[in-house]
């Protein structure tokens, strides 16, 4: 209480002093600070709050949402099975795509003109075809090569393998389409990451006599990861959502399942919302994973790692808590000054 009184008296004392003397230095540190008012910010903020409130209001009052239907189907076994297939496609096609992309990236950077031009052509070709078209082509490949077997030369082992599964299942067509598409894109992302590593790093690694495997996996890729990761997560999230394209070949991933259900019960919007919410949940999980993985690879490139959201929340609560102690004191000061 004494400190409060002390503060009040100083704020009072200064103007009085200067009213008398008008000369002598002013102690600016003791003056009260009047914060700038951001009027435009306040008005726009109010507008945003209004829009969000209106949206929430309609979400709860508009009968067309049929939240009961949504709730009934959200955890329905058919939906969960579809979700499982969506995840499986993402993981399988994503893994194949990124490993193949890594190999293609190294091939493109290779000194062999044959390897690098093959990788270039692969990327060029599979980036040129829309994913939708590709999936349908793979699904219908049986029309083109009905009798391909082991005996034909100049085909890759990969090709033969899926032919022997007798005219490609829908799942294989989907994985092929997604994985090849992904390989072409991730190859460029990984190559970009490798190029972003300073040439001096390779030189230093070479001068130390480190074998190629160590140079790539211990020195270059961990550093490239920093610029690869944001784009790679974009790609994984794109792939997760891209799996909905394979609904055209009647593969029962989550979007196909919701379509089947609303064609039967005509509850289009609630069923679509089921898909929307599930996709949102999955991408949210990926975004959280992205934050922590990027933070891990930031070691060494920043002096202090940025705080995690949890640490930030804890710090925020702590400062708010500390302020609780100050708040009444400040109020009294103001009141005191006004009185």
């Amino acid at each position, binding site marked *: 209480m004494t400190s409060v009184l002390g503060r009040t008296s100083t704020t009072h004392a200064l103007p009085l002093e200067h009213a008398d003397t008008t000369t002598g230095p002013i102690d600016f540190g003791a003056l009260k600070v009047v914060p700038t008012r951001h009027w435009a910010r306040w008005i726009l903020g109010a507008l945003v709050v209004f829009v969000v409130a209106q949206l929430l209001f309609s979400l709860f009052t508009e009968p067309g949402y049929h939240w009961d239907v949504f709730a009934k189907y959200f955890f329905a076994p058919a939906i969960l099975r579809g979700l499982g297939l969506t995840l499986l496609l993402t993981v399988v096609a994503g893994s194949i795509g990124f490993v193949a992309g890594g190999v293609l990236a190294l091939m493109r950077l290779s000194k062999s003109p044959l390897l690098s031009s093959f990788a270039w052509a692969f990327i060029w070709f599979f980036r040129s075809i829309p994913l939708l078209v590709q999936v349908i082509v793979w699904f219908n490949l049986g029309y083109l090569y009905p009798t391909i077997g082991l005996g034909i030369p100049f085909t890759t082992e990969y090709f033969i393998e899926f032919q022997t599964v007798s005219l490609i299942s829908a799942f294989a067509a989907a994985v092929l389409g997604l994985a090849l598409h992904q390989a072409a894109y991730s190859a460029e992302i990984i190559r970009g990451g490798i190029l972003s590593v*300073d040439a*001096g*790093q390779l*030189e*230093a*690694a*070479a*001068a*130390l*006599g*480190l*074998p*190629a495997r*160590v140079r790539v996996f*211990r*020195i270059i890729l*961990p*550093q490239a990861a920093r610029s690869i990761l944001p784009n790679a997560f974009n790609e994984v999230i794109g792939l997760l959502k891209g799996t909905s394209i394979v609904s055209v070949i009647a593969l029962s991933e989550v979007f196909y399942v919701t379509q089947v259900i609303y064609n039967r019960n005509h509850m289009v919007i609630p069923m679509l919302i089921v898909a929307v919410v599930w996709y949102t949940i999955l991408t949210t999980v990926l975004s959280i994973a992205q934050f922590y993985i990027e933070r891990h*690879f930031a*070691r*060494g*490139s*920043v*002096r202090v790692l940025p705080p995690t959201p949890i640490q930030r929340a804890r710090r925020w609560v702590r400062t708010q808590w500390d302020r609780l102690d100050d708040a009444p004191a400040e109020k009294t000061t103001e009141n005191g000054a006004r009185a």
Partner: protein
Amino acid sequence: MTLLRETATTGLVEIRSVSKSYGTHEVLHDVSLTIEPGEVVTILGPSGSGKSTLLRTINHLETVDRGWVSIDGSLIGYEHRPEKNPAKDGPGKLYELKEKEILGRRTQVGVVFQNFNLFPHLTALQNIVEAPIALKRLSKVDARQLALGLLDRVGLGDKADAYPRQLSGGQQQRVAIARALALQPKVLLFDEPTSALDPELVGEVLDVIRDLANLGTTLVIVTHELGFAREVSDRIVFIDHGHILEVGTPAEVLGNPQHPRTREFLAKAL
């Protein structure tokens, strides 16, 4: 000074008739130089004279167009296989080494770069132990012991767990020297080790190099620090436009230069 040194038996560098061009620009022209085991040689010259290129040919970071480089008699980048009957079939052929063999020979030569080139995602300690562990020279425990010892030697015993970005330029360069020493090279190359440093940090790096000079490792240094070169070198090589113009003791080259280009360079540098 030479008398104080331990007598070194390895680390003989021979450079014979080396030429190297980038396109039409000839960087090195018929350069020959022999560096004795344990000798400290400084290469001086204006920028673009080919001094860094010459240094880098010693570790096969640059390949040469003509001529050859050897360390303790083994060629850099090639293997000589003589014919069974030299009188009849000639002196034999040079075979390009495989990547693995090149890497093996490279470990005899340590390099300290102008821009340190520490691995930024690894701590000081991890930077040093990486090569001895990857090349299976030492166990993890032994490598750690060695690295801590080396960090102590360059005066950074307390910085083992710091990342390069948390260190000053001078400290980073000292870690880089410790990293180069971890493979116990016969020859150490310094490519302008203090050029990227603030003036007040140059001294701490030069102190470390000075200590090394007394331990019997062959040192080849490209630098612009003339005072340091005079103090630490057994011989100084002056190179310009890819030609070696002058070789001699510091007193000879710095005190009584014979070639007009050397005199001109020193007049500007001092």
